[in-house]
């Protein structure tokens, strides 16, 4: 059976010379298949948004309705979770959402999924986490640490609950990154395994004799691949949506710190 992990292998397409940066050390600038997948997603997204907005009509066509649907989805999300300041953070959440969505969905068409690379999901998570920290300190100053001081808890329990809050706060980027990474990894591994079954069982069936029994199982595997692909489209959208929702919730924690606690 084909190796289900092979699809995640980074391959250099154009090898550029390494550069050594002062802090990061030696950085490999090579254009890899991951870069190509990211670029493809970026180009598709920009093309889509440009097509939606360049000739925007008051009465929308199909394409514009689709674009406005995504736009309105995130707009409502930011408004309902963050409140009246949500509009300020809308471009960030929308960029996050549509970039992840584009990479997830293109991963189902291309041979390489950018969001199944831990490096990519960690970057998304750290961007979100970093923005939460920046906004938190910029808006509240040192009052930001009130986030870890639960006013609702009894006084004796507050240090304990605060510690738990602090640890869970630090774990946010980890879970953000791992959720997206794990979903994409798991989905594509499962797809590849079932697709591999089709080939290997088909070969077994071609041997004739008792091996003919393998054909129905191969057909079953093929059906499974189709069903899983449909599921993966749902997951691709859902994970992007969940990432956006969680980014909104985390931003709301620090934007409306005084009202919430």
């Amino acid at each position, binding site marked *: 059976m*084909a*190796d289900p*992990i*092979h699809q*995640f*292998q*980074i391959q250099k397409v154009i090898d550029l010379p390494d550069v050594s940066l002062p802090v*990061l050390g030696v*950085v*490999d*600038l*090579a254009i*890899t298949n*991951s*870069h190509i997948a*990211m*670029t493809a997603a*970026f180009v598709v*997204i*920009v093309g889509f*948004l*440009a097509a*939606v*907005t*360049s000739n*925007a*009509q*008051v*009465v*929308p066509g199909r394409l514009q309705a689709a*674009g*406005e649907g995504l*736009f*309105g989805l995130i707009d409502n999300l930011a408004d309902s979770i963050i409140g009246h300041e949500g509009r300020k953070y*809308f*471009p*960030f959440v*929308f*960029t996050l959402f*549509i*970039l992840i969505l584009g990479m997830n969905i293109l991963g189902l068409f291309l041979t390489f999924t*950018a969001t*199944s*690379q*831990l*490096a*990519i999901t*960690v*970057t*998304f998570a750290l*961007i979100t986490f970093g923005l939460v920290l920046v906004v938190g300190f910029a808006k509240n100053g040192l009052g930001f640490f009130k986030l870890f001081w639960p006013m609702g808890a009894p006084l004796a329990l507050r240090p304990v609950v605060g510690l738990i809050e602090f640890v869970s706060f630090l774990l946010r980027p980890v879970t953000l990154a791992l959720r997206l*990474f794990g979903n994409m*990894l798991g989905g594509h591994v499962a797809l590849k395994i079932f697709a591999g079954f089709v*080939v290997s069982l088909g*070969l077994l069936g*071609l*041997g*004739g*004799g008792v091996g003919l029994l393998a054909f129905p199982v191969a057909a079953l595997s093929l059906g499974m691949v189709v069903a899983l692909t449909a599921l993966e489209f749902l997951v691709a959208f859902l994970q992007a949506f969940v990432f956006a929702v969680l980014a909104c919730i985390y931003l709301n924690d620090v934007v409306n710190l005084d009202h919430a606690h």
Partner: protein
Amino acid sequence: MASTHTNDALPASVEADLHAETATAAEHGSGGLPQFQFEHWAGQIGYLLILFVILYVLVSKVFAPRLRKVMDERADTISNAVATARQVQAEAAEQAAQAQAEVAKARADARAMAAAAKARVTEDANARQAAEEAVVNDRIAEAETAIGKTRDAAMANVATIASDAAAAMVERLTGKAATSAELATAKGAA
């Protein structure tokens, strides 16, 4: 089915493929998941950050304002249309009320005219009736006075006739003429 033939021919390429697969698998199998080959991280992260920033700027400066403008325009158009419709509706309601008022006024006029005509007719009729009645009453009164006169005359005649009759009866019964005083008492007693 020539199983030996297909066995030789078809899977040969696939087998080679499988060998290639296992070869690559062995190649990176020792390094674990490809995602944990950290030498590829910096390039991907840097590139993603660049893309993210470009897309963020595009969304916040171009796409979001454009779409928001269109959506605001649409909201304006819809609210304008609703306002216009509401205004037209109000106008129509006003006109309907006006028409209704006119109808009511016309009806009231007609009713008043009918009432006036009826009153006039009744008055005429009453007046005529009163006049007729007066004439009739006059005649009745005339007739009554005539009847009264006749009766008085008759009554006056009756007294003389009665005293005459009484004098005649007394004369026949007693053989002598009754005096007029006796006659008067008898007549009064009678």
